[in-house]
């Protein structure tokens, strides 16, 4: 851009910066200085052999890559796989179809059709669909769930032949607790936040909180 030329390298030289603004020039900053190449570097063969040796020596060091399909990643409880639904012992979902995960989902991958039920939880999802092509595995659904009903699984390999294979319904989403236990233990620890003393880190069974004063008096309300 400038017309004058650096005699050493043949590269155009830069005029020293014009008066720097006061604040920018106030502090002396360390300068990264360019240097002209040494004769050895200009001849190129020395550094070339050095780099070749460096690369050659790598052959005798430990592998840092993984042979993926055969050699799987080590699964840690922090891993965000695809979100799945927690199945209770009787095979029903923990989910009470409150719709909070549906609301919070940034890519709108979750679609819930709520329905009433006679069981004590009163509401359950009639249909629960997650589009795994939309899902970004951000774990917001898991974080907001007031029932610990949707958690991130360790399943990170979602494959299919058609687009429909990625739209998971209730049947495909429900997983027994045993499969998700390590993740559930981890989020219970995390979601205590500052409240380390709180012991009620697992949601009460049945999904409904009953005040102990009302023990024996209350009965699930029949809405039908």
């Amino acid at each position, binding site marked *: 851009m400038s017309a004058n030329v650096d005699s050493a390298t043949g590269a155009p030289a830069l005029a020293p910066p014009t008066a720097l*603004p*006061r*604040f*920018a020039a106030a502090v002396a900053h360390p300068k990264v200085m360019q240097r002209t190449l040494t004769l050895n570097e200009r001849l190129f063969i020395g550094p070339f052999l050095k780099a070749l040796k460096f690369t050659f020596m790598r052959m005798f060091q430990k592998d840092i890559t993984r042979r993926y399909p055969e050699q799987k990643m080590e699964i840690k409880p922090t891993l965000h796989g695809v979100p799945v639904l927690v199945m209770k012992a009787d095979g029903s979902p923990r989910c009470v179809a409150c719709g909070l995960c549906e609301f919070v989902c940034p890519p709108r991958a979750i679609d819930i059709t709520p329905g009433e039920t006679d069981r004590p939880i009163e509401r359950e999802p009639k249909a629960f669909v997650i589009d795994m092509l939309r899902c970004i595995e951000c774990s917001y659904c898991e974080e907001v769930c007031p029932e610990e009903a949707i958690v991130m699984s360790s399943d990170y390999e979602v494959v299919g032949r058609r687009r429909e294979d990625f739209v998971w319904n209730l049947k495909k989403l429900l997983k027994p607790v045993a499969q998700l236990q390590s993740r559930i233990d981890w989020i219970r620890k995390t979601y205590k936040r500052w409240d380390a003393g709180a012991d009620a880190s697992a949601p009460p069974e049945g999904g409904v909180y009953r005040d102990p004063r009302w023990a024996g008096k209350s009965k699930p309300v029949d809405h039908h």
Partner: protein
Amino acid sequence: MADVPANPSSSTSPAPAAPAVAAPPPPDPLIVAITALGAEVLPPTQDQLLAFRVERDEWPTVARALRREPQLSFEMLIDVAGVDFPKRQPRFEVVYHLWSLTWNKVVRIKVGVPEEDPQVASVVELWPTADWHEREAFDMVGLKFAGHPDLRRILMPDDYPWHPLRKDFPVEGIDNSISYVRAGGVLMTRELDVDRPAGQDRTPVDLSHGDPAGYSDGTPTLPEEGRA
């Protein structure tokens, strides 16, 4: 309708119970210098930046002073944002953020732009970086910058007929699959760049920006009232 008030802080943060202070602190010399140019001081917002409102006609002189006057010397234009307030007069606002590397101060300058004549003076001469900033504001909000050397769309396709960051543009978009542009009532085919002779600039396509009739073409659905 949750519209932004002209002075946000006065409506949100209650005025602090002012103790009986004998002498108010001396005013910031920057504020004095900028108000002397005819700018109106805006109340501070959460980020405590110096904020000013400048009349559109005075903006070229104020901008020149902000850049060139040694006691101001705002060397760097950080950002230009076009904002649309459909319920306000004037409808548009250009928000400039300027940074003085001399004083290490950031100021926010707001210039109101009416809908009927969405024009504001370009500051490309003072801050060459304003080139793309202003092209973006033109592209997204439809503001025209008088004196800009090359005002054309930058992020959207050249023949895109709408300004997406206006509030009456729906977030789901408007179907624009046909490659025709309605300009001045005449349908034009999309100009292919390969047909353009070498060295010749692109033919400017008047998209009648700011013309409400331009919106009726694709029958956009207006967002419902109250959506912020």
